[in-house]
């Protein structure tokens, strides 16, 4: 058990430490990097808890997919003035107080339940890893092979699995991805890409880019520019 404790301490420290780093840093690229480390450490915690499949999925989908997407987004928008956007100190102080209170509440709640304290640990061998892939797959198909049947002679497949949720989530994912692809498409006045004739004056967008980015006129200019429906109607 000593290794379990040791690795738990290690991964927990990494996960919590980098989660705090995400909160504390103001550089958005660093934030994304710390988040990667935090979530990877979380995957380690899953492995420790015997959830190999979830751990792998965390690494593959969350860290390898979602966070890459996130960093992609950061890089697309990471202009000088947006990399560091600082928050007002008062807000920070308020958030820290609320957060601390929430943390104490949740932690104390966690230790209220005696069964959760880990006083009666199940023994396990480090050499063997749990075989959860098959049961999870069967559960997603509606078969719960992992639970003991209520009676000895009842067939194993009359208990509800997760087939409905699985279907819903699959359809949901499809719809969401199509929607996201549609949403990400933007519309904008002619930028220099379509400006074939170099002598033609630069479009509004270029003026926009040249303008002082912190000015409020930028916001208004971009809003008028990007509502073609109004100008067309």
């Amino acid at each position, binding site marked *: 058990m000593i290794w379990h404790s040791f690795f738990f301490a290690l991964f927990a420290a990494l996960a919590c430490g980098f989660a705090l780093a995400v909160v504390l840093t103001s550089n958005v690229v660093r934030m994304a990097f710390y988040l990667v480390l935090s979530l990877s450490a979380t995957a380690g915690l899953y492995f420790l808890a015997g959830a190999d499949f979830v751990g792998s999925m965390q690494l593959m989908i969350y860290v390898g997919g979602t966070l890459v997407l996130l960093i992609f987004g950061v890089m697309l928008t990471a202009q000088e003035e947006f990399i560091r956007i600082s928050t007002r100190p008062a807000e920070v102080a308020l958030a820290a107080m609320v957060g601390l209170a929430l943390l104490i509440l949740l932690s104390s709640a966690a230790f209220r339940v005696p069964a959760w304290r880990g006083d009666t640990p199940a*023994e396990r061998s480090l050499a063997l890893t749990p075989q959860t892939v098959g049961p999870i797959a069967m559960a997603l198909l509606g078969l719960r092979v992992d639970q003991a049947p209520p009676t000895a002679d009842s067939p194993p497949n009359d208990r509800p699995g997760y087939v409905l949720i699985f279907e819903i989530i699959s359809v949901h994912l499809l719809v969401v991805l199509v929607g996201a692809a549609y949403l990400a498409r933007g519309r904008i006045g002619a930028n220099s890409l379509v400006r074939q004739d170099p002598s033609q004056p630069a479009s509004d967008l270029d003026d926009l880019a040249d303008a002082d980015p912190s000015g409020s006129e930028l916001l208004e200019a971009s809003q008028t520019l990007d509502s073609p429906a109004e100008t067309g109607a």
Partner: protein
Amino acid sequence: MAVTLNRALDALTGWLVGSIGDDAACGYALAAILQAGMLLNLVAISGLVFIWLERKIAGRIQDRLGPTRTGGRFGWLQTIADGLKLLCKEDLMPGKADWLLFRLAPYIGLAASLSAFLALPFSGMPHPFVAQRLDVAVFFVLAVLGLEVFSVILAGYSSASKWSLFGAMREAAQVVSYEVPLGLCAVTPVMLAGSMDLVTIGDAQQGGFWNWYLLHSPFAFITFGVYFTCATASVNRAPFDLAEAESELVGGFHTEYSGLRWSLFFLAEYGSMMLVSLLAAILFLGGWHGVLPLGLGSGGWLEALLGTGIGGYLGALLGLVLLLTKGLLLVIFMMWARWSLPRLRIDQVMTTCLKYCTPIAAVCFLGATLWQASLPNGLLLRPYNAELLRAQAAGPVATPPADVLIVDTAGGRP
């Protein structure tokens, strides 16, 4: 292997320290260090060999000799000499770079490349040479391999160079896209073996090349082709090496790197090349089993001759050699492609992935499934051994013998 090694080491340390801990803590620590060291050496040495091999192959393809001076007439020591040179080079960092990310990025890539080897078996039952046998080994390897992209993205971003940024953007788009068909292709052997455990998958293909999943069905054959294409793309090898396209982006993501950090990127790249090749060998090419039934495994002539102990280990060792040979051949194929083909354009790379590889992989998966279902004993709908699973999950009550794991979920194939 871990358990056997652990027992031996625990006895050794116990003898040295004078008492045997009930937790076997020292043994596990030593076993872990030893195994990590072995894998590290494997990657490092194979990196050295591959770089030499790449130069030699490139030379031969281009009507040259390649390295001939350092280390005899074949230039064996050329890579070591180059490595020493790189060690001595100044570690430069652009003034505007994000120092933390810039410094860390190469290590992330190397760590990801190395970690994926943790779950990769080098031999089958009864002595699976694997650092940590996982039930989800296939996905674990692919998932950890996918983390390598962070090193490229962060290196590209933190270099404060436009070329690096372009390389990073390309890499991000490319790797995330290619993980989809790569996973789809890897699912086909998983489906055929009925397990994500690489040891099980490898052992399901024993007994000659006609049992390899490559030759299982036409669909599986095509799947292998798609897998290898996508694997080449996901480890950034030509013709998909857009992130470092030297004719367009100077050096891509590693434009600003020099010296040791620069070489770490390449160590990671060669490690990943080896990894995807070994994975391909296990998933499709029979893994550690010979082209013809050699009888090296359990119940073979080797065990009959030398006994299950030494004979078994010797057989596993020979299996390891076989697996490495297969992996090496695939790596050489990648090198051959690199020195023969022009590079694709980024939009063509994405088209290849999204319009060709992904649909083909999906169709082949379906096809292979139907093919398997139409075989006489192919259907997977056997009574599921729930009791055994429960027993196993319950822990030490029904712990099977240490080195014999349940190959229960295997599909219809022998």
